Structure formats: C-alpha cells, structure tokens
C-alpha cells in the first residue's frame, strides 16, 4: 500500500470533491425531505481507484470537514463509518482494475458486492453502535437511521458509483487498439 505524492494529492482533491458535494443532493421525490447523496458515489469511486488509505482519508476528512463547515458540528459517530466504507472498498482497488481499463462484467458485480458489504458494516453496524455509545440514543431510532442511510448509499453508490467507475475505466484504458473508421 503506497502513500506517495499521487495518493496525497488524490486524498486532498478527493476530500475537496467530497466536501463540495456535501450540499448536492438528489431528492427521492416519493418520500418528502429525503435525498440521495452523490458524495457517497464519489467516495466509493475514489476508493476503488486509489486504494484504502486514500479512501479512508477522503471518507473521514471529507465527512468531518463537511459537517464542520456546513453544519457547525462534527458527528464523529457518522464520520468513522464513512472512513470504514472508503477503506473497505479501497482494499480491493487492484481487483477492480479501473485504471487499467478492465472494469466490466465480473468486476462490476464484485465492486457492488464489496460496496454493499462496506456500507452495511458502516451504517447498519458501526454508526448505530457509536450513536448508542456516545450519545446514548435509543437503539431502535439509530438502527432505523442506519438502515435508511445504508439503503440510500447503496443505491447511489451502486448506480452512480458504477457508472463513474465504468466511464473512467473506458476513458483511461485501451488507447492502443483504436483504429480510425471511414
């Protein structure tokens, strides 16, 4: 696991993107005042390209800074799970082969399996437990919140995250085999 210059910059700019997207939401429509968060897709994409350290930093720092700048408080119980998602997806970065242009078929499925597991660990397990430990909040409330966040995040990460990774893979791979057509 390398943390060289490129990874430092990727972590920094990835975090900037995550923070900038904090207030960008896709309203669900059928349930009022609920929204999907595109930044969850960004996180899995960045992690899948740059690995667990970058993913962990972007999740942790991005969530903490986003909370602090826009909401004036840091909810550590939700910051940590964000990092968990980044790290878990990042561990398998090499397997996804996004940069090498090999992100298709089996890899897309695998990517989504990992992203669902990561999000489940983070939002159904990690976040509610921390909420209970830190804030002594009622268990049924925090688990429902967690499941809700889990569903939203796997949808957006599954759709938008997969499209992002696929498109990036298309763009960065296979440039030598192209031929002009008349």
């Amino acid at each position, binding site marked *: 696991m390398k943390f060289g210059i490129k990874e430092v910059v990727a972590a920094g700019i990835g975090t900037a993107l995550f923070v900038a997207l904090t207030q960008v939401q896709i309203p669900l429509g059928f349930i009022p005042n609920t929204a999907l968060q595109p930044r969850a897709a960004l996180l899995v994409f960045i992690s899948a390209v740059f690995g667990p350290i970058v993913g962990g930093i972007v999740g942790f720092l991005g969530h903490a800074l986003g909370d602090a700048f826009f909401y004036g408080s840091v909810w550590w119980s939700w910051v940590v799970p964000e990092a968990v998602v980044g790290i878990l997806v990042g561990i398998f970065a090499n397997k996804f082969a996004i940069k090498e242009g090999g992100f298709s078929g089996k890899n897309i499925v695998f990517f989504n399996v990992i992203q669902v597991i990561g999000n489940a660990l983070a939002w159904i397990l990690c976040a509610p437990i921390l909420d209970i430990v830190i804030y002594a909040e009622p268990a049924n409330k925090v688990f429902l919140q967690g499941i809700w966040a889990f569903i939203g995040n796997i949808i957006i990460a599954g759709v938008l995250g997969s499209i992002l990774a*696929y*498109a*990036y893979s*298309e*763009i*960065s791979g*296979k*440039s*030598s085999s*192209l031929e*002009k*057509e*008349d």
Partner: protein
Amino acid sequence: MEPIISFSNFTFKYRTQVEPTLYDINLNIYPGEKVLIIGPSGSGKSTLAHCINGLVPFSYSGDITGEYSICGKDPKKMDIFGLSQMVGTVLQDTDGQFIGLTVAEDIAFALENDCVPGEEMKRKVDEVADTVHAKELLLNSPFALSGGQKQRVSMAGVLVDDVDILLFDEPLANLDPATGKTAIALIDEIHKTQKKTVLIIEHRLEDALYRDVDRIILVSEGRIVCDAKPDELLAGDLLREHGIREPLYVTALKHAGCTVTEDSHPAHIETLYTDLYKEKVKAWFESVSLPEKKPSSEEILSVSRLGFSYAPDKPVLKDVSFAIRRGEMTAIVGKNGAGKTTLSNLICGFLKPDAGEIFLEGKDITPLSVKERGEVVGLVMQNPNQMISKPMIYDEVALGLSVRGFPEEEIKERVYRVLKICGLYQFRNWPVGALSFGQKKRVTIASILVMDPKVIILDEPTAGQDYRHYTEIMEFLKYLNEGQGITILMITHDMHLMLEYTDRAIVLADGELLCDDKPARVLTDEALAQRAYLKKTSLYELADKCDIADPVMFTERFIYYERENHHGTSVNL
C-alpha cells in the same frame, strides 16, 4: 564552455506508445543562454521539456537511447528531486502549480520540503517575492489573484530553490496580451539579473519574441528541424512549413513580395530595418482593395442597459447595451474580471440581471429557463474536460438531443452530420480519453452544434491550441458562420483571432462597454488597447515605419488579403 544541457543522439519512446516521441535529438544549451523552443502541438516539445525536468523518465516512464546530461550529470542516475535542484519548471496550468493556501506558502513550498528553518525561509520568500514584484500579495489566497499574478507566484516558487535552469512551459497560454507582455519582460529581467539559463516553450512566437532570445529551436514531429538565431529563422520559410505562425509584420512583408533577410533584423518590429521593403509594402497596400461591406441584416441578439452585481456596491456589469446582427462573428474582449464571463452567463440565463433586458429575435428572453435558452443560444466552455460527460464520442455529441427525446434515427443522422463537419467522423466510436485536447474541444463544439442553435457563444475557443489547430477551429467556425448562417460570439483575448476572424469587437473594461468597433480599429488605438489589456498590433507599427498614412486601413487590407489567400483550406463535408 561546457554545455549545461546536452543531448546527443537522444531518442525517447513512452512506454504506452508504439513510436518514439523524440528522435535523434542533438542539442547543446550553454549556461546563461535564453532559448525559445517552439513547435506545433504533438511535436514533442513538451516531452523534450519533461526530459529536462525529470518528469521523463521518473513520472512518465519509457525507453531512452542515446546520451544526455543536465549540469554535467547523467539524469538517469539521479532522481527527480536531484533534478529539481537544478531545473525549476513553471507549468502552463498556474492553478495546478499553485499548491499553497496563500502566496507566501506557495513560494515557500520547495523550501519547506528542504526542511529550511522558519526564519531563513521567511527571509528568502520575501527576497524572491520582491524579485517577481509580488511582495504585496504574500498573504493573498489564490482566488484573489489574476492569471498574471498567479504566474508571478509560480515563478517565485521555482526561483526560491536557487536553480540554474528555468523552464517555462507555455507561459503565455492563459494570459491576456498585455499581461503576457509583462510576463515575457519579467522572464527577461530574471534572466538578466539572476544569470540563469532560461528555456521558454511557446508557440505564440510573436509574443514570446517581445524580448530578445539567443536562439530558437524548432521541433517538429519529434525532431529538431532548426536551431538558429531568431533573425535567421524568421527570414526563412520553415515556420510556416511547420505550422508555426510568423509575426504578423513578417507575414505582411512576405505578402508584399519582399524577401525578408536576416540582416534586416526581423526578430522585433522595433529593430526591423524597413528601408528595403518600404516601396514594396506601399505598392502592395495600394493594390489590395476591400470589397463592399455586407449590408447589415436584422438584429438577432440584443442586450439593453444590462447591469449585474454580486454585492450592492461592486457592480460587475454596468449599463451595457449592444446588438448583434444575424450572421455576425463578434468578439467580446477585455482583461480577466472585466465582466466578459458575467455577460455570457447573463445571456445564457445562469445569472439573473439586476437591470436591463436581453432580446433574441426581438423577443425578451428573460422569462425563459436555462434549458429553453440552451436551444437557441449554445455555450461552449473553455475547458472541454468540464463539458464532456460521456465516455464515448458519439454519446457525448448525442446527449443534447437524447435528453430532449428526439427519435433515434434523427439523432444518428444529425450526430453523424455534425461529426463530419467537425472532422471527428473517423473517431465516432472512440472513447473521449483517446483524443487530444484540440479534438476534445471539437467534440464540445459538435455537442452544441448538433442542437442547431441560432447563436453560439464560445469562451476562448482557441486557448491552448497551436497555429494549425487554431486555424482549423477558426476556419471551421468561419464555415459555420458563413456557410450555415450561425451567429457567433466569442469571448477571447487572442488578438489574432479577433483581427482575423471577427467583424466586430465589443470591448469591456471594469464592467463597462468601452468600445464597439471594428477589431482593426480597436487594435490600432494605443489608449484603448491599453485599457482593455490588449496590445497594439505590430501591423500598426509596420505601417507607420513604411510611411503608410492609414494604419487601420493597412491592417484591414492585410487581414482581408490573408483571409482570401492563405486560409483557403476549405472544410470538407
């Protein structure tokens, strides 16, 4: 004297490519020299620069054959950090190069990495900031700086390392003409006072030659095709052959049938010895006649008393009114922050005006949504990477039609037609990533054209393009304008572009409309050019030197002649 940079029989091939990018380079650069490296895009000039600063082979790997040395050392046996102690690089993208949160931190960056202690660091930063005239900026953040200021900070950031060689990668690319002039002057000042070896990579030759250089190295298709003094190179025909634009006054001399000689010192208009050419130039001036002007047709887009501000006491745009007629090609010019982008944002509906109205074909478009306006007014952004949202070229161009629900067949037909117009048809099934910057630009133009807008607004359409691609894009826009009747509005600070291709220039300065006139008139008016951060064209001075009484007319005739005789490259359909 030992050369400071030396290449012999040097060949380089990127690992990801089949053919070498540089072939058989033989080049010696001596300490204290100032050398200009020119060449069209894709010629290998940037790769040559990367070989000097160590990005090749340390960041971009590949195969090297032959020998080279920097400061007497073999770079292959060093690392990029060792090289960065000898070669300081100022990148073209000043936003990317500006890493610090403030000017002072950015300048200090290299020192921080060298573990220089606090006090010494502060002293050195102050010293270097002084050299590039940026001392009053030290505490500013990058957002508060203009392009020219950012570039000065970048220069300071490499000077602080006390390197021997300074490498400027297209320093003029993002600057308006007046700021570009200042930048070249500053580079010259640094060269003289700091006794550095200076390498400038540029394709804007006339602007780069604003101050003397010792030699010009012309790179084309991976080879050095010429290594000569500026006067010698300008006297020959190599530049045109290799797709580099000559200074306008040199082109004018050649049009007039003069044989430009080395001893007439054509490197600068100021030093040009015109006695030999005077009569021929005069005769040519008399012989060219301008055609009758087209009768003006109806107004297509007009704005009336437009005003906008973000904060109540700081107007960005004040009381701007003008009317564009159908089929015109107009330039909106002015320095950064003059209100050009705000104006186009208002026309496209991204911003709501505080005062005034916008009419399209006589109808007030203020109530229209952004999407509705997008069907009649198309906007092409400066950076194509900020527009392209599909991995495949075909899909990208089709996007505007498919979101509007056009039938598949019609989409295909229109996309293919536009791709052919834009010379992209061969690449229709390629991923966008495989294209060059210029080709991507054409993809974005195609993706707007496909919607058949009545007016197209282009933000810096030729930024970062070499002469060949510039000509290609502009001829293409001219074809759209003349052949398809599309009205074109361009936001630019490229003076050649406005001179050669536009009928009108709307000059903005500090949010006000300063002037609305023929480009030839704008660029021959010293005071006006200065206020708009433009530069008076060298044609004016040539006319002056040749005792031609009407420099504006001279400029207009030159442009007309140039258009008729040298841009005959028709667009193939």
